[in-house]
């Protein structure tokens, strides 16, 4: 006698539904939506009750957490699932996890938890295993089953990004790890409580294995409180409308979600095949790591989006390169989560989205590639690294489609990668510390189809992006902000520019035992402009810091101190400060020790551009100049702008006439320097034949060609290479 409906086992229900979908093309084989057609307004009432409840649950739970990631930045999300793990309604927050948790629930069902582990009212499961259903170890999920008269009626899930996960280095996202065993504590759909109470043994395990548990405990309480609040509300709703109505309702709402998504695709996208490619660099050559990891590597993220006239949306990644012995790998659930968070922002944002949308899409993530690794011990700590670059390409594909349909106001050319900086050691209160400064949740948005991208205010993985208050971050980490400012020119140039990123100059303060790590793309372009716009500057590549500084004397004498990067070629922390200055362009910083008065500059990327830069409207140029957002260097050469500052008002003015002339000049230069693509092709082909490509690039091609025959064939065909050509 199963805990599913009518005595079925959950595995039976799951199987039945996937069979029905396969047979009929409709979720649960629902050809008609009888409840909705019978009384559309009652249907709406029930939905608004469920949605209202889950949103309210989040609002309440937000206040419990101690972690600024949750309280300041709202990195918390609650979701209501069907017994088989299909999402029915969701709150805002890190909605990327709406689908990852769904996969976790389905995994438990397939593993027959029903019999082997037991699923009862009051049980608490937690999961952070990305191979099973998550993005990375730092995203911790609480899942509780909810019953009605002995039948499992729903799952409720809550997830948030934790500060610390007990990995090889401090923080939620260890970067020194080369396999699963350095990723930190793994909880693979683990039962950690019964009767709404956590097992003491579980709590002890956390206390003994994490760098400080205040944040961990309060985050967990926040997740549980939210789940329990939702459970109470759900019971009331079921009592009011009847369990039979509810059961039928959740079936219909998901099938409707599927139809709705296909409808949106038909309405907004143009059928056809879209292609783009992104790349993520892992420059680990010479790093103190095992040989298989101490290499320069590039992750290849080729994207093919297919839109069919019937509204089917397919994402394929044929040609993706192999997984790596580094934290920069992703997993199937994580990639599906990435797709989810993208489409909920670009197509299905009306708040009625559910797992139906997922059933209306197809995905192809090649097995053995970094997007779907075939090694069970692969590290999945920094999943977001390659994942984020992939969806930059997806944004571009969808933006082309919006353009073709005439909906330019929906275009986003991409976004700046968020990278990371993490803290370890001892905090200013003398406690062990592990945490990530989540001000990174505010990069530059890519240029839009009708305006510039949003400056320092976007992270693709959470549309409710924010950087939080410096005063709050100074409460959490032993640091003093010497400045937090926009990075001029960090947004990709174009007719509309990408939103600029920002950077913070932080001085270590209140602790002599600080260990920082930092990672993100840098040596390679992880995004690209669209319709002639440029990718964003690689500010994340550079790690600049100064140790053993003379800042105490500087302060005493009231001499200038670094408050922003200044001239990138001669940064303020080098110019103003005496000390041990480091400038490293490797884009990864392995654990590095800092002491009081050391300074470090964190860079957060800008977004890519849109359109031909010499078409940039004059008034936008002037605005940038007056806000100090523009680089003099690129004004003339790239934007073709001639401007001068008024001595009276100190306002910048663009000389339209001279600008017009200069822009014509630039066109002429292009004519002179441009070569016919076919000629370029011949020359480039020679290089390939001679294998005159850098080692990481050749490695990337080799892996892509070995994993995907079709991609290898296309590569050879394009360059007209012999069938046996290999790198």
């Amino acid at each position, binding site marked *: 006698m199963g805990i599913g409906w009518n005595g079925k086992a959950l595995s039976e229900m799951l199987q039945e539904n996937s069979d029905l979908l396969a047979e009929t093309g409709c979720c649960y084989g629902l050809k008609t939506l009888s409840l909705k057609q019978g009384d559309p307004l009652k249907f709406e009432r029930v939905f608004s009750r469920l949605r209202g409840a889950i949103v309210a649950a989040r609002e309440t739970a937000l206040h419990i957490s101690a972690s600024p990631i949750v309280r300041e930045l709202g990195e918390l999300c609650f979701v209501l699932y069907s017994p088989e793990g299909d999402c029915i309604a969701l709150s805002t927050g890190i909605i990327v996890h709406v689908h990852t948790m769904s996969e976790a629930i389905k995994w438990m069902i397939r593993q027959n938890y029903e019999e082997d582990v037991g699923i009862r009212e009051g049980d608490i499961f937690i999961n952070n295993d990305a191979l099973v259903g998550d993005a990375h170890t730092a995203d911790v999920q609480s899942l509780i089953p909810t019953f009605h008269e002995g039948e499992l009626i729903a799952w409720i899930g809550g997830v948030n990004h934790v500060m610390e996960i007990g990995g090889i280095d401090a923080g939620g996202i260890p970067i020194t790890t080369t396999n699963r065993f350095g990723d930190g504590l793994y909880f693979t759909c683990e039962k950690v409580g019964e009767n709404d109470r956590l097992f003491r043994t579980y709590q002890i395990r956390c206390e003994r294995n994490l760098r400080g548990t205040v944040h961990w405990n309060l985050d967990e309480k926040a997740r549980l409180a939210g789940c329990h609040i939702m459970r109470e509300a759900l019971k009331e709703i079921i009592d009011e409308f009847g369990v039979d109505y509810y059961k039928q309702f959740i079936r219909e709402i998901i099938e409707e979600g599927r139809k709705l998504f296909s409808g949106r695709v038909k309405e907004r996208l143009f059928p056809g095949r879209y292609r783009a490619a992104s790349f993520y660099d892992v420059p680990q050559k010479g790093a103190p790591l095992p040989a298989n990891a101490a290499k320069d590597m590039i992750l290849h993220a080729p994207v093919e989006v297919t839109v069919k006239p019937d509204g089917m949306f397919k994402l394929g990644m044929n040609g993706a390169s192999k997984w790596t012995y580094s934290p920069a790998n992703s997993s199937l659930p994580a990639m599906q989560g990435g797709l989810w968070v993208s489409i909920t922002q670009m197509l299905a944002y009306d708040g009625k989205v559910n797992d139906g949308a997922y059933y209306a899409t197809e995905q192809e993530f090649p097995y053995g590639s970094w997007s779907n690794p075939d090694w069970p011990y692969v590290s999945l700590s920094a999943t977001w690294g390659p994942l984020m670059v992939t969806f930059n390409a997806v944004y571009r594909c969808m933006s082309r489609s919006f353009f073709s*349909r*005439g909906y330019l106001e929906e275009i986003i050319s991409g976004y700046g990668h968020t990278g990371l900086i993490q803290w370890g050691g001892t905090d200013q209160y003398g406690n062990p510390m592990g945490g990530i400064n989540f001000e990174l949740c505010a990069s530059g948005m890519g240029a839009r189809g009708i305006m510039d991208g949003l400056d320092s205010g976007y992270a693709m993985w959470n549309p409710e992006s924010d950087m939080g208050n410096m005063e709050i971050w100074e409460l959490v980490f032993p640091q003093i902000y010497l400045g937090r400012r926009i990075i001029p020119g960090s947004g990709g140039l174009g007719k509309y520019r990408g939103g600029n990123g920002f950077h913070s100059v932080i001085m270590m303060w209140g602790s002599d035992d600080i260990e920082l790590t930092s990672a993100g793309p840098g*040596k390679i372009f992880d995004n690209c402009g669209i319709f002639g716009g440029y990718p964003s500057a690689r500010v994340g590549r550079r790690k600049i810091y100064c140790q053993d500084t003379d800042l105490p004397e500087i302060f005493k004498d009231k001499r200038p101190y670094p408050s922003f990067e200044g001239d990138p070629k001669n940064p303020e922390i080098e110019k103003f400060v005496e000390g041990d200055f480091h400038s490293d362009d490797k884009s990864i910083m392995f654990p590095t020790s800092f002491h009081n008065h050391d300074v470090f500059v964190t860079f957060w990327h800008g977004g890519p551009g849109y359109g031909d830069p010499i078409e940039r409207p004059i008034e936008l140029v002037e605005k940038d100049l007056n806000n100090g957002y523009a680089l003099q260097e690129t004004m003339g050469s790239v934007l073709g702008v001639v401007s001068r500052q008024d001595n009276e008002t100190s306002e910048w003015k663009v000389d339209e006439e001279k600008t017009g002339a200069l822009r014509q000049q630039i066109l002429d230069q292009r004519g002179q320097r441009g070569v016919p693509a076919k000629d370029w092709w011949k020359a480039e082909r020679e290089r390939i034949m001679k294998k005159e490509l850098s080692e990481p690039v050749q490695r990337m091609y080799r892996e892509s060609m070995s994993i995907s025959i079709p991609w290898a064939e296309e590569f050879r065909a394009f360059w007209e290479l012999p069938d046996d050509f290999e790198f």
Partner: protein
Amino acid sequence: MPTYSKETITSLIEGKLPWTTTKQIMSEQKDPDRFEKILEIHQDRVPWSDTIVLCMGEHLYIVRKRVNGDWGFMVKCECGFEFCEYSRNWKMEALMYVRDTEEKLEEIMPAPHIADPEWGVIREYYCPGCKTQLEVEALPPGYPVIFDFLPDIDGFYEMYPDLKKKLFKEG
């Protein structure tokens, strides 16, 4: 469902609409006649008379015309330069400029915040006619030219027979 005048749509796509109105349009349900109006707006703009059946990107169109005898779809620039049939990658007919050294990369972004040209380069594609920068690629050296968009034009127009009748007059 909303519908907007050609004037409104024109200033919208030119980025000249006041923000409040723009925001309203963004938050509203979509105007179903947008595609048709966009085609008309662009058709009035271009200095040539071939029928635009699809706007591919800034300044770039797919037009329906006779290609050696029978009807076909060509990729064409606003300036009048014709690239090739839509089923082939127009970029292979473009002028190209590759930024594959630090100097060339530092011209377009703040040095030294650039990629390592050994790892990633920038390819610029200009229209041989008007020299407009139509596309940019950022890739490792040796990467095949990307075929950005292969539209299913027939599949699309199947869904809009009236529009098809209106645009595909002859043939």
